[in-house]
């Protein structure tokens, strides 16, 4: 341990006086610095050390999909728009304003002037065009960003600060997509580099922080962008960020992350599970949580399977799951049982709690009605066949297995035998494509209700083999409706229809939970339950 110098000795006293004076002078000069710690006033300066569990091996915001990496790379780029996490409303950021054609096929953005990238180049309509032209060629890693721009006809430069994006079909989700990290705007030079180069070397953005160093599997270091003056309209502080430096350390062991936070070796940690909560209680730590918007964790049925074609069987399974018990025993404190196919933090979410109430009696009578008779060994049978459901899952979250084992028990109680089949992450997509599955366990984070269309429209991938129905029309109509009230009505209708027909069994909302030292202030979740560190300060 390094010994602290003894400030009482005369030699140090002189130095201390000198230092104090210069600090005071600096404070007077800049006018932004607070007058000291503990008075609750935001202060500039300092380093935030944030421990995350994994490294995706890529530092290009347009390509990454994992929260642990989004936390850091998000800070490097600005987006055309921002989304208010409370209302879901889209607000100005790099775009001062925008116009959307009545049929939701053309989006015109009016850019802010005076914005520069960290390589000195200015933000122009051409830069945005370069970005949107490059995104469809990102390849396998950039599927999120590509999805947002799918069906794009052209991006045109109207004038130096006006850019217009046109789609073949109505695409109301695109406005929200422009607020995500996936469509964060990079400099033209960056946009023109190969996806691999951007992954390993990082990108040039116009964001409040600049990438200083990336050491794979170790750390991402960011420094404050001096002269930054084009923050989102949602942020409290104007101009530069408070913090001088951000250091994201990769610490895979959850227990080590929690202990490091508790012992002050880091200021914040990601992915706090239920098991770590006890270790963090008391002391100088607060837990911060928010449900991820989008499709909740649940069972995605293969609705074409003979067993699951029968709506009564699907509804019986929907009723036989005790969501509250699962949320309370397996997931971090505060996790909510699903009350719709969408999480409550998604814009246009509708509370359908009564339709998702646990009702074992109802489940049993529905199965009786469908011809599945209770047998001697507890498993129902029909025409000599047992009522067996296989659930495919991947071990990408620690909560998956215990949650599914609980569901297995709950379904057994009504006579449904469940087989759990663990797949490698790499097998999931091929399995869903092939249709060789009964049900898969998973969720999708997205702060726009259009995620329902991506998952349940028969006109897209339709992994869940949902039969063509009026739902298709509702989903297409919401994608073509720009009027917020009209769209909200259609989204509500779609949620009701999915839950009523039990095309999917919603179970729990995924909750993102962070652990923060009490000296970290104003670290809030954005609309996608990720973080923006411009307003964050330490003191």
């Amino acid at each position, binding site marked *: 341990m390094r010994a602290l110098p003894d400030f009482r000795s005369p030699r140090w006293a002189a130095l201390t006086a000198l230092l104090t004076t210069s600090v005071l002078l600096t404070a007077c000069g800049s006018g932004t610095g607070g007058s000291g710690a503990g008075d609750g006033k935001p202060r500039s300066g300092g380093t935030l050390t944030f421990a995350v569990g994994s490294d995706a*091996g890529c530092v290009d915001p347009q390509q990454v999909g994992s929260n642990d990496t989004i936390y850091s790379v998000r800070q490097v780029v600005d987006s055309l728009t921002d989304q208010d996490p409370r209302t879901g409303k889209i607000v100005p950021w790099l775009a001062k304003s925008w116009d959307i054609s009545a049929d939701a096929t053309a989006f015109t953005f009016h850019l802010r002037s005076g914005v520069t990238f960290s390589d000195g180049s200015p933000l122009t309509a051409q830069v945005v065009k370069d970005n949107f032209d490059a995104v469809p060629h990102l390849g396998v890693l950039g599927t999120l960003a590509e999805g947002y721009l799918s069906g794009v006809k052209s991006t045109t430069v109207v004038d130096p600060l006006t850019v217009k994006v046109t789609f073949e079909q109505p695409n109301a989700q695109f406005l929200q997509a422009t607020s995500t990290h996936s469509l964060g705007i990079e400099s033209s030079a960056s946009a023109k580099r190969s996806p691999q180069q951007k992954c390993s070397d990082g990108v040039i953005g116009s964001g409040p922080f600049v990438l200083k160093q990336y050491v794979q599997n170790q750390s991402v270091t960011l420094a404050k962008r001096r002269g930054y003056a084009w923050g989102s309209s949602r942020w409290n502080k104007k101009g530069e960020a408070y913090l001088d430096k951000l250091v994201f350390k990769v610490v895979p062991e959850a227990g080590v992350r929690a202990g490091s936070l508790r012992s002050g070796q880091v200021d914040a940690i990601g992915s706090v599970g239920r098991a770590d909560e006890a270790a963090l209680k008391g002391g100088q730590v607060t837990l911060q949580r928010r449900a991820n918007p989008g499709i909740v964790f649940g069972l995605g049925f293969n609705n074409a399977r003979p067993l699951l074609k029968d709506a009564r069987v699907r509804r019986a399974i929907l009723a036989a799951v005790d969501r509250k018990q699962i949320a309370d025993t397996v997931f971090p404190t505060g996790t909510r049982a699903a009350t719709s196919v969408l999480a409550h933090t998604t814009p246009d979410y509708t509370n359908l709690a009564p339709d998702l109430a646990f009702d074992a009696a109802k489940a049993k009578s529905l199965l009786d009605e469908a011809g599945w008779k209770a047998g001697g060994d507890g498993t129902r049978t029909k025409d000599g066949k047992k009522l067996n459901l296989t659930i495919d899952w991947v071990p990408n979250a620690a909560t998956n297995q215990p949650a599914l084992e609980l569901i297995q028990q709950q379904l057994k109680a009504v006579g449904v035998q469940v087989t759990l089949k663990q797949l490698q992450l790499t097998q999931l997509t091929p399995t869903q494509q092939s249709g060789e599955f009964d049900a898969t366990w998973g969720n999708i984070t997205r702060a726009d209700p259009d995620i329902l269309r991506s998952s349940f429209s028969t006109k897209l991938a339709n992994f869940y083999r949902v039969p063509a129905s009026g739902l298709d029309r509702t989903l297409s109509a919401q994608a073509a409706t720009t009027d917020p009230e009209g769209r909200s009505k259609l989204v509500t209708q779609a949620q009701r229809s999915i839950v009523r027909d039990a095309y999917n069994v919603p179970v729990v909302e995924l909750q993102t939970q962070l652990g923060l030292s009490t000296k970290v202030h104003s670290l809030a979740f954005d609309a996608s339950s990720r973080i923006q560190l411009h307003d964050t300060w330490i003191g």
Partner: protein
Amino acid sequence: MRGYVLKRLAQAVGVLWAAYTVSFLVLDYLPGDPVTAMAGAGMDSGQVDPRQIAALRHEYGFDKPVLTQYAEYLGRAVRGDFGNSVATGRPVASTLADALPQTLQLTASALLFAVVLGGGLAVTATYTTRRWLRQLLLSLPPLGVSVPTFWVGLLLVEAFSFRLRWFPAFGNDGLKGLVLPALTLAVPTGALIAQVLAKSLLTALDQPYVETARAKGAGRWRVHLRHALRNASLPALTVAGLLVGQLIAGSVVVETVFSRDGLGRVTAAAVTAQDIPVVQGVVAFGALIFVTTNLVVDLVYPLLDPRIVVASERRARIA
């Protein structure tokens, strides 16, 4: 002697080739493939364009017949080229070369700790005349071999980093950051050294030459350290290859617990991402270290005990 060396060299090359081939076959047999892994990493939407996957598979040569792939890979591997990582696009050779110094640092310090702790334990246990102390000390190595490294690491972090705050809990920063991971890794290795050394020391102490030395009036310490220990170290040297294997395998766990950069982390990440070129590189590299260690031991052995070469040559003549 020349025949002995050549034979050992040929064996070493054979082991390397076998390790490479077996790992290739196993990786080829495993379900899933690296390109889809790459596409699905960190995504939960699972919407991947099959055409892009096909294009990437072609780019990496995964669409060729297995035998062709094997021949190509082996041909390049012989020249030290293990291709590029599927996950990061970086050459495998430089990925391993970057991680190597960190792991060498860790394993070297762990070996030092292990020799001091394990050797000290064996010598003390066999030297002491107190029965209870000997029993106690000799019961430690089996414990050290059987406790999970993971658990030892977490225990040490809890005590010396989170509570006492003497050492950092993670990272590759300097000597301080090296102490806890090296200690963790030293536990199973030291236990193995202690086990082997204690057993052979006890055997050596019963040998006639020890009696002779004693009869000539040598002191207890002198007999123990100069006479018995010297002979007893030969079996310990024999397990050196085993120790190296244990250290490399242990680094996967230790580097993960302590968030250290190194070969272990590279391995763990490569396995998770099904990054086949990197896994192949790690296997080949691990085998190379293992084989080299054993080769060195085999070549040093006759210097310590000339009877070994004689025996080997006699066997060769009979065969």
